[in-house]
């Protein structure tokens, strides 16, 4: 398995990746509290972006409603903790199952009924919106008044109930991000990974080569949904409050997918690079505006939108592919050497 993980990866890339990991592990000792919260946010988006990337980047199925799965994971774990004091780790399998099931139902209906492309994307938005309004009216989970997870005691880190300091949350999300990267790497090099990419590139051709495209698209949706709901559990216990209006809204879904799209769709490092860029940019803007003394709500977002526009127009494949070339990490394109 380890051989599969590192095969094909240029040595320099491996070294850079390990250096980055070392820096991230050491970061809480070096940075202040504010930067730590920024790093947590970056890793959260890197993890969630990786999860979304399975569906769109690997299998080519555009979901614009992934906030749905974040919300389902968040609400499942938070509600069970709130009502029964259940540890999120115990709720985890249920949260994954709920999200996976909802993803499966949506996939089953969409793929069986031939809903594809733009229509599929809009279906995912519609289901997320449906959930948003539904949760707004579901009093057991607090409805529109919100669900509050009993607040953490910052002096004591309790990994079992996920109550603790930002530093603990930082290491949890770092571990998740690393895990997601490894899982995605293994997936991409597996039968499923090859089949997903084939479906993404040309579904008819994939079928002609013996790929059961329906089944593999379902795998992608269910896996992506389940992985995303894990991000939701983190979200719920990190922020301690959940409002349907904030959790399920389309803005959240878009936030999740900016990273992988800006970073480089379908690549493994893209979601991570994208998360650093997008969140870093947003926070840097925020700081810069504060320094200059502009405190207009919306000003940051306008600039953010402009940056997004420029990146999308200038780098159609995202930042990572050209960056990879710049770092001299491109996979070899010729020669018969068996990798």
């Amino acid at each position, binding site marked *: 398995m380890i051989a599969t993980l590192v095969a094909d990866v240029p040595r320099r890339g491996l070294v850079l990746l390990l250096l980055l990991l070392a820096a991230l592990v050491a970061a809480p000792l070096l940075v202040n509290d504010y930067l730590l919260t920024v790093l947590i946010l970056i890793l959260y988006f890197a993890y969630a972006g990786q999860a979304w990337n399975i569906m*769109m980047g690997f299998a080519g199925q*555009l979901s*614009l409603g992934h906030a749905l799965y974040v919300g389902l994971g968040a609400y499942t774990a938070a509600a069970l903790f709130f009502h029964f004091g259940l540890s999120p780790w115990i709720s985890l399998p249920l949260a994954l199952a709920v999200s996976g099931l909802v993803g499966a139902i949506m996939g089953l*209906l*969409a793929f069986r*009924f*031939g*809903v594809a*492309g*733009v*229509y599929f*994307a*809009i*279906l995912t*938005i*519609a*289901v997320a*919106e*449906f959930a948003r*309004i*539904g949760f*707004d*009216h579901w009093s057991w989970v607090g409805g*529109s008044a919100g669900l509050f997870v009993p607040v953490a005691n910052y002096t004591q880190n309790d990994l079992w109930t996920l109550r603790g300091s930002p530093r603990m949350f930082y290491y949890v999300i770092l571990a998740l991000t690393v895990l997601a990267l490894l899982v995605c790497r293994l997936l991409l090099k597996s039968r499923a990974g090859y089949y997903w990419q084939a479906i993404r590139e040309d579904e008819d051709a994939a079928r002609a080569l013996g790929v059961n495209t329906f089944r593999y698209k379902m795998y992608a949706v269910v896996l992506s949904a389940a992985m995303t709901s894990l991000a939701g559990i983190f979200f719920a216990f990190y922020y301690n409050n959940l409002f349907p209006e904030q959790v399920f809204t*389309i*803005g959240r879904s*878009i936030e999740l997918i*900016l990273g992988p*799209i800006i970073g480089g*769709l379908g690549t493994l490092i893209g979601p991570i690079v994208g998360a650093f860029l997008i969140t870093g940019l947003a926070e840097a803007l925020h700081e810069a505006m504060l320094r200059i003394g502009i405190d*207009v*709500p*919306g*000003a940051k*977002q*306008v600039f*953010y*939108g*402009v940056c*997004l*526009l420029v990146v*999308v*127009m200038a780098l*159609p494949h995202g930042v990572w592919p050209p960056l990879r070339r710049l770092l001299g990490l491109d996979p070899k394109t010729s020669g018969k050497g068996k990798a």
Partner: protein
Amino acid sequence: MPAEIYLNVAVNGLLTGLVYGLMALGLSVIFGVVRVVNFAHGEMMALAMYATVAAFTSLGLDPFLMLVPVAAALFVLGYALQAGVINPFINRPEHSQFMLLVAVAIILVNIQLIVFGPDARSVQTSYSFDSFQIGKLIVDASKVYAAATALLIAGALFAFFRFTILGKAIRACADNYAGALVVGLDVKRLYALTFGIGAACVGAAGVMLSLVIDVTPSLGPAYTLLAFVIVITGGLGSMPGALLGGVLVGLTEALAGLFYTPSAKGMFAFGLLVLVLLFRPQGILGKKLG
């Protein structure tokens, strides 16, 4: 509940639905020809509403006077957007175009937030509280005017695409991109015109809608979604479908508000969309997918 309440609510829903239909018509025209989903559609409409409100509050201009100037301004915006930003993206994958328009939407929403603030704004005309009474049926005068105008504009648009050379040329682009190129049509210019026309539609719908509802910056994203629901229900790319979808969604919202609770009306609209997608993915009046 007495029967006339249902009737009242239904008629009001139908009238609002016609304005929705005009808004969605813009989206449908753009998608039908340019094959780009305008993710900034609601934001463009909110822009038109703000322009109307601003003209009314600062200059005292009646919204109906603003109909042509605002539609023209949005035409220019749409034309520029297509010519300057979207045309280079025509052959890019869908998600790429989507990101582009999401960026435009983010910019538009936040400019509105900066300029007008987060509070709701509205137009209070002299006829704001007028109503017509026909038997036991009472309808808001504003809604009647708005719906009638929406129908008139939609009719003009049908005529434009059906009878003018330019309209026919645009339809040719939609039917056969390569063919249109071969016969020497300037496809990119026609695309820009189409986006302009779609934007003008949503602009006019915004002016009319400002008579009926308040405008806030958060209205934009919500109405982008609503426009999707409408055009997919009616059939993406079908002009009569957009009007029909608008009416259906208007009715669904109004009746859901009456029978259940107004805050959940969106759920029914989205429920309608999911049903349509699953059982008639091309929409009620749409052409077969493929």
